[in-house]
């Protein structure tokens, strides 16, 4: 099992807490980098010091929203290879199609129940832990 550097782009504080708590509850060693919105995330990424292995991206955010962020990411020759998994409440088919069109590595709906959330995150991280990732 690889230890992942995860960039979580999420504006909702409780959602950030949820992921952190889920990881510690599951006793995983993944490292979470937090960005409150797309703008902040881009700042972090453009430093290109230590790039994350995967990105977990919320769509509904102030300033630069998820889809705008995705578009910018895909225009960057280096950053475009980072697998980006959308983690959102939106089951809007339009958003889903648009995301896949631009290029995403997954689309996970945030469930209502916390337990369901934990179970989904466990599976998601387990999956990416066994994936070979490009060393940037």
């Amino acid at each position, binding site marked *: 099992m690889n230890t992942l550097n995860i960039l979580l782009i999420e504006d909702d504080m409780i*959602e950030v807490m949820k992921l952190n*708590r889920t990881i510690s509850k599951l006793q995983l060693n993944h490292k979470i980098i937090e960005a409150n919105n797309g703008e902040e995330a881009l700042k972090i990424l453009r430093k290109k010091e230590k790039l994350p292995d995967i990105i977990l991206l919320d769509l509904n955010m102030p300033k630069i929203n998820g889809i705008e962020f995705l578009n910018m990411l895909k225009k960057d020759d280096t950053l475009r290879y980072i697998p980006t998994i959308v983690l959102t*409440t939106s089951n809007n088919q339009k*958003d889903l199609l648009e995301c896949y069109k631009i290029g995403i590595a997954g689309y996970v709906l*945030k*469930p*209502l129940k916390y337990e369901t959330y934990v179970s989904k995150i466990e599976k998601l991280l387990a999956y990416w832990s066994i994936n070979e990732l490009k060393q940037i």
Partner: protein
Amino acid sequence: MSQDKIDMLQRALAREKAARKQAEKILENKSAELYDAKQKLEKSYFELESLLNRKDSELQGVFENIVDAYVIIDLWGNILKMNDAAVNLLGFDNPKEDYNLMDMARPNDIELVTESFKTLLKEGSITDFYINIITKKKEEKLVHINASIIYDKGAPVAAQGIVRDVTEAKRNAELIEEQKKELDVIVQNSSLGIVLTESGNIVRTNEAFQKLLGYSESELSKLTIKDISLKEDFPLSRDFLMKMDSGKIDNFVVQKRYKKKDGSVVWAKTNVNAVRSSTGDIKYQVALVEDITSDRERSLIIDMINDLAKAILGKMDIYEIAWEITHNIAEYLNTDDCVIYLVDQDQGTLEQIAAYGEKVTANHQIINKIKLPIGKGIVGTVAKTGKAELIKNTEEDKRYIVDEKRRFSEITVPIISDGQVIGIIDSEHIDKNYYTLKQLHTLENIANLVAMQLKSAINLRERQKVESKNKDLLNELAKSNDELQEYAHMVSHDLKSPLRSIDALVNWIKEDNEDKLDAVSLKNFELIETTLEKMEQLIADVLMYSSVGAQALEEELVDLNDIVKELEKILFIPKHISIKVLNPLPKVNGDITKLKQLFQNLISNAIKFNDKPKGLVEIDFQEQKTHYQFSVKDNGMGIEEEYHSKIFEIFHVLNKREDSTGIGLSIVKKIVKLHMGDIWIDSELGKGTTFYFTLKK
């Protein structure tokens, strides 16, 4: 006896003897001479006689060979001799008949004949005596007689005369005279003007021509054709006249103008004919002149109306139609100004939509468009009253509004459709008293002609306006629909997020306080979680309701049997409830996701609200002409009739249940409507409910 005496006697005898002898000799000579003379005389007499005979027969030949009738009569009128021509003329059978010429005179003419005969006797001759005779064959003839007396030794013995039958000649002369009179009547009374000219100078004219130009005959006779023609028309005739002079043609027709005495102009069709002398030179020219001013005007009007009708036929653009009207009318009225106004009933104004003349640019754009209130100005008045007006002098009309410049005559005609003034045709002319009543009538006719076309063009324009407005509205609607959709998603996200957070927080409290919470608190946390679930369901349903119909219907052929089978697997069906499909369901054209929602809602409702120990849900259908009618029947609790129509309203919940939001049936109705169908129920409280709905084939 004396010797002497004897001697003397003897001597005397001898002398006598000698003398006798001499006398005998002379006599003898004389007698010879006489004989000679006699001989000679006899010879010449003979000669003379033969000469006379010859002459006589010659005369006889001449007499007989005279072409005219030749008659010799005695002094009482009895015919002595006549030639063959006379026999013919007088109706005899042969020249030897005895007849008195006097008998041929008609009783009335006897006196005249007697008088003439006296003159003949007295004067010795009579010439050019005309008399009607009745011939022996009872033919009436008019004869012309020249006669003279024949004298013998100074005494009149007979009369000779040459008689000519002039019956025919007289009749011809009368006929010619009559014809000439008739011709004169025709010429003088002809409705065509007739002019006789000699090298361009007017020689004679008839009344019609005089009337046409307003000159008297004597005035005209002092004028030349050029004097009464328009210079502009000279080239028209010139070619023809040259050809006529050179003998190539004898006749030509031109339409030209003539100047009247009062200075006005008439249009005339002129038919010119050459009258040539025996040598072929033109002696005279005869021109037949027909006034075609009114014809021309009429044909001008007809041409214009024709042109206009052709021009606007099929045109649906109001500006194009109006432009055709203005320039055709301007041409017809021979003016440089014509404007079409359109009535805007909503605003109570008149708008200039087309113009001719100085008011427009080369590409038909109106310069300084003016908008007039209905009722203002001459145009505004006509728009209000619907009555055409003819202004002879705009200076005297206070209503006149100067457009780009003052003109003194104005003609204004309303275009009326269905009793409503829809437009105005207005034309002005710089001269006073320019327009005529006739032109006014013509314009009214044109207004009638174009009214329908203009009206339909206006309608089209209105329709296009409305259509484009509708299109904008539709676009806007689609846009706002999209926006609404986005908004619904945003709202649902924003509403769901806190629910998720609360759920997480509740779970953390439970986790962090494990073993510390009592049973009541744990029960309350559970209630919080159920409430959150219901809240989330509500949000999801609202989102779905707003989504149905917002997205385009994706049509495909859907097998409803598959849908029901799938639902039987997905839905939670309690053991005491059975679902039956009575007949194999048809395939319908529709949106598979929505049809699934439709059946899911109805079936789950049937399950949910079943209070019987043995629940039954029956699905069936009937084929109709254009639709399939489906039914979902249950034996559940049923619905009171007063709620039958209310249950399809959004958020209307009959039974308070944790798992019903009151949106399901609204969604169902929306889906049915989207598939051009209808939905209704049949239900009895306590016994069960049947939902009927139709879907378009």
